[in-house]
């Protein structure tokens, strides 16, 4: 088992940076020493009061130092900030301005996507400046440092949770997800939220009933924006310059605006129910942390 603990970080490096076709492993195994430390950290529940941003900054600093111990300069996390982070908005502010972001961010989403690709290419270019042996050493050490950071700070709050496909920690996550989904406290807050939404004129059993049809309806406009916008990009325009108003025709725009207004109205009702104390996310987070701690500690 000792040898596994040493080899595991190197073995999973490829999976971190080339997904899909590197994630087949599915065998149960004993946790490595670092994984054991992560499990113990999870068992402590989320008792620390640090804001996610502070934890993330501390994690970043930790990885920076961890890499420096091996004489490596940390290139930063390979992930891009979320659209919401990029806009520097709280969830509540985002909801006021963009609703859920289904029909209201069609042009923003395309620019955002391009930006994340540009950032990814810049990251890869920086990695490519390293000689191959050094690059492998960098990636192995980065994985090791990421795992070590999870032992100190818990699993990442937002974005990719870097775990090997055969990590025993996945089993704890599975069990916590299932237990949370079936927890009566979640059913209770969802029922209260549903009642609250009904009082405001909307009949939704849960948030998927509220959001998924809007998302599906928005898809036709995303497709139209993408196809019609591509013609303009091919003739020299850039996606950054192309608002939906510059790409969609009058009939499409009118239909989109109707959908956007409906989405904003529903989002306002939803926010009002959260303000009334029917906050499903908050209850879910609390219940999930509790179950995760329970399973990790068992």
């Amino acid at each position, binding site marked *: 088992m000792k040898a596994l603990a040493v080899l595991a970080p190197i073995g999973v490096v490829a999976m971190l940076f080339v997904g899909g076709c590197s994630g087949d492993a599915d065998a149960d195994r004993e946790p490595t020493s670092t994984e054991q430390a992560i499990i113990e950290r999870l068992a402590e529940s989320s008792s620390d009061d640090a804001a996610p941003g502070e934890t993330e900054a501390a994690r970043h600093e930790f990885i920076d130092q961890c890499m420096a111990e091996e004489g490596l300069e940390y290139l930063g996390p390979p992930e891009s900030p*979320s659209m919401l982070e990029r806009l520097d908005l709280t969830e509540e502010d985002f909801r006021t301005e963009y609703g859920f*972001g289904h029909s209201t961010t069609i042009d923003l989403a395309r620019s955002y996507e391009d930006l994340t690709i540009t950032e990814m290419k810049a990251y890869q270019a920086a990695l490519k400046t390293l000689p191959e042996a050094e690059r492998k050493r960098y990636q192995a050490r980065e994985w090791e440092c990421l795992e070590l950071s999870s032992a100190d700070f818990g699993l990442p709050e937002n974005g990719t949770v870097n775990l090997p496909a055969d990590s025993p920690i996945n089993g704890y996550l599975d069990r916590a997800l299932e237990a949370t989904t079936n927890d009566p406290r979640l059913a209770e807050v969802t029922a209260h939220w549903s009642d609250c939404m009904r009082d405001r004129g909307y009949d939704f059993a849960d948030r998927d009933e509220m959001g998924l049809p809007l998302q599906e309806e928005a898809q036709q406009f995303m497709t139209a924006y993408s196809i019609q916008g591509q013609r303009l990009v091919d003739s020299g325009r850039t996606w950054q310059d192309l608002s939906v108003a510059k790409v969609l025709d009058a009939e499409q725009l009118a239909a989109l605006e109707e959908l956007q207004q409906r989405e904003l109205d529903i989002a306002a009702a939803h926010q009002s129910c959260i303000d009334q104390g029917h906050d499903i996310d908050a209850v879910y987070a609390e219940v999930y942390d509790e179950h995760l701690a329970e399973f990790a500690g068992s």
Partner: protein
Amino acid sequence: MNYAYNGHIVARERAVSGTCDGDEIYNGQLADPYNDGYAARARFRDGSYNAIAGYATTSAWNSYRFYDQTGNSTAYFQIYSSPASRPSYWEINRGH
């Protein structure tokens, strides 16, 4: 792989065993374990191709398929959910 927001998992993706055989078809599975009004999605970019290939709205694994567009069994792909959750890094899917 798991993708988190607010410390809990909002999207999951895995390759179907045996899909990494260089036949230019990627078979994946996607799940959306969190009832938040957003589907989990897998977007692929390959040459000029840019589209959502995978879509999931429940915690059950939902199979999807991506056909390589450029004949090199390599494409960028990204998993994402709501605008608040960070999308995964654009990964290079090699060998499908």
